[in-house]
């Protein structure tokens, strides 16, 4: 005989899960008791939302679904923001929540919440387990759904009695059979050929690449296609890292907070090849104008994204790997014409940004620009949300590493827990967090998790005593009325970090900041570097 809780652990092992993130509670206790005997590493976060963010960072680093666990009621509802963030950013994730005993469901008992109902809009799929016998099938399906097609979070809500019930034996299914779920990954051959013809006829083509290129692992294929054809590449926030930042064909991030040369190029193009991007409002502010101006080939694994925001000339539904392979095989020796090549080079040279500095403060954009060269080639930068995100997106010179941020949901407090997950997913990589003092204070409790798990994560806090992004919005749109955007001087972040057992200093010049970064990257201990930033430093150049 075997309990439901033991089965849950065996299911995770069968899926090759080695690390999970969570926070226990009464209704998930049977599972935690079984987990205690297993070889799966459990990372105890300090608030459930961070378990989901850490699972997200882990998933992005390891390219496997991240697993987060919480108890029923408030534990489960605390997960929601993390699940919603993963949903928006298309991150494969399994969220496991305890639930009150099935016989008590619907009676509003202690710590009961309808979490499958509450998460409906933010999950790719969800299960409320009603028979212990179903657990293996449900786990098999959940991992399959989370990691195939367009990745996303799947929630498994398990009443306590389903965990304690004993059944005869455990057998993990080898295959899944879900009638309503068969993602099309192939990419229609005729559509690919049509796309090739359109590219060959284009005078000023451009590639817009999004997070889909990274999540499908098609980064190198995209680089190859761009290099073969010499078509310049822009990226969305989620697509940063698709090309090395200094690649001659790369123009940077597009959109409201993007680089001017990228936006200029997008305005000039006559054919946009959109790869794994949904073209949300931050990327394309006026989609109707874009459709009128230029032809669009849209490649995405999710058919519902094609035509949703921007009208499309050639839709291709499929995995980026397959479609890019098709494009590479069919494009022949096509190269863009010299005129367009020159124009792009001009744009890139012309829109070099001038950065104003403030005496006695760190200039964050310059610092982030230099950061990459002080780290290993494959370093992972986790940026939070706010001005710090834009500074990082536009200035971090990515080489072979990764850039983790929440481009879709824009959840403050993401960077520190995501870095915890990233570090555990790729232990040998340098992992650096850049956040603001607002976002730092949203998840500073996780410093404790970093220390407990002895994680070498360097945290750079851009401290301007402001909620800078909103303050900037107030400067530009609300007559400089700084309603609720001023933070006070407390806490002393250096003292706070030290209280957690993490060494920390505050610096007020780039020179000092660089000096410390040079020193701390050599150490295998975590560090909090507080950079004093002038409140008037803008997010865009």
């Amino acid at each position, binding site marked *: 005989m075997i309990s439901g809780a033991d089965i849950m652990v065996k299911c995770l092992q069968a899926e090759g899960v080695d690390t999970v993130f969570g926070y226990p509670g009464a209704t998930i206790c049977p599972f935690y008791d079984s987990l205690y005997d297993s070889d799966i590493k459990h990372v105890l976060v300090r608030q459930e939302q961070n378990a989901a963010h850490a699972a997200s960072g882990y998933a992005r680093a390891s390219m496997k679904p991240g697993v987060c666990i919480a108890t029923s009621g408030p534990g489960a509802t605390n997960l929601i923001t993390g699940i919603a963030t993963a949903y928006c950013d298309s991150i494969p994730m399994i969220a496991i929540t305890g639930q009150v005993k099935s016989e008590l469901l619907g009676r509003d008992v202690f710590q009961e919440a309808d979490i499958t*109902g509450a998460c409906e*809009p933010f999950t790719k799929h969800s299960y409320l387990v009603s028979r212990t016998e179903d657990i293996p099938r449900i786990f098999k399906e959940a991992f399959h*759904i989370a990691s195939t097609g367009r990745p996303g979070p799947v929630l498994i809500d398990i009443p306590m009695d389903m965990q304690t019930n004993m059944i005869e034996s455990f057998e993990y299914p080898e295959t899944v059979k879900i009638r*309503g779920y068969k993602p099309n990954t192939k990419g229609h051959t005729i559509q690919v050929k049509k796309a090739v013809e359109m590219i060959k006829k284009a005078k000023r083509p451009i590639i817009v690449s999004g997070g889909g290129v990274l999540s499908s692992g098609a980064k190198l294929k995209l680089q190859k296609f761009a290099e073969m054809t010499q078509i310049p590449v822009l990226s969305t926030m989620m697509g940063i890292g698709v090309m090395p930042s200094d690649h001659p064909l790369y123009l940077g991030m597009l959109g409201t907070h993007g680089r001017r040369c990228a936006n200029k190029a997008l305005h000039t193009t006559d054919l946009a090849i959109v790869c794994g991007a949904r073209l949300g409002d931050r990327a394309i502010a006026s989609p109707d104008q874009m459709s009128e101006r230029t032809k669009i080939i849209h490649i995405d694994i999710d*058919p*519902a994204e094609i*035509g949703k925001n921007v009208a499309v000339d050639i839709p291709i539904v499929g995995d980026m790997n397959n479609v890019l392979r098709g494009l590479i095989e069919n494009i022949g020796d096509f190269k863009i014409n010299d005129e367009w090549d020159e124009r792009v080079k001009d744009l890139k040279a012309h829109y070099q940004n001038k950065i104003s500095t403030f005496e006695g403060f760190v200039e964050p954009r310059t610092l982030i620009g230099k950061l990459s060269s002080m780290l290993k080639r494959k370093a992972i930068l986790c940026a939070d949300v706010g001005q710090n995100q834009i500074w990082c997106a536009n200035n971090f010179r990515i080489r072979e590493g990764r850039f983790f941020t929440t481009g879709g949901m824009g959840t403050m407090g993401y960077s520190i827990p995501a870095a915890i997950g990233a570090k555990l997913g790729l232990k040998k990589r340098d992992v650096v967090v850049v956040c603001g003092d607002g976002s730092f204070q949203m998840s500073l409790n996780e410093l404790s998790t970093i220390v407990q798990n002895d994680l070498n994560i360097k945290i750079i806090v851009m401290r301007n005593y402001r909620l800078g992004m909103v303050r900037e919005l107030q400067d530009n749109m609300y007559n400089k009325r700084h309603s609720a955007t001023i933070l006070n001087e407390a806490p002393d972040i250096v003292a706070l970090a030290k209280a957690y057992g993490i060494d920390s200093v505050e610096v007020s010049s780039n020179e000092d900041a660089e000096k410390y970064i040079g020193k701390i990257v050599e150490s295998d201990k975590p560090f909090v570097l507080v950079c004093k930033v002038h409140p008037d430093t803008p997010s865009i150049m």
Partner: protein
Amino acid sequence: MKYTLSVLVENQAGVLSKISGLFSRRGFNIDSLAVGVTSDPTVSRITIVANGDEYVVEQLEKQLNKLIPVIKVKRLIDGEFISRELCLIKVHSPAAKRFEIIKIAELMGAKVDDVGTNTITLEYCNTTDKIATLTDLVRPYGIREIVRTGTIAIDKGKTTVN
């Protein structure tokens, strides 16, 4: 523009809430929604009548297809399907008016299900348009209550949605 969708779904708890949630969340307007089990007891069929332009209906189909328990979505083509709706109408009917109302019911092919001292209840199974005609005809007498099932629809000829 009105359109009719036939949606085959897994016959499980919670599927209907996933579908109705999708409508409110994405701002789709629906006129009616009817659910019933098919010849396969593990599959239910939902008929949705909704309003919107081509963009809306395309998005609606795609978003429905994204739901895991949705097995198939088919847009029925105007003029190529039969649709029916069942409705029960309770009409105010003093004895003096009773026969007028029964006459209207006869003309329209509705059935009289119940007669009370001051009411008469008609049962009518027809298209949405015909139901509108019948309700218009009995409205002057005073409609006390109407219950409708929502439209169900099936392709004409040998075409099926299986």
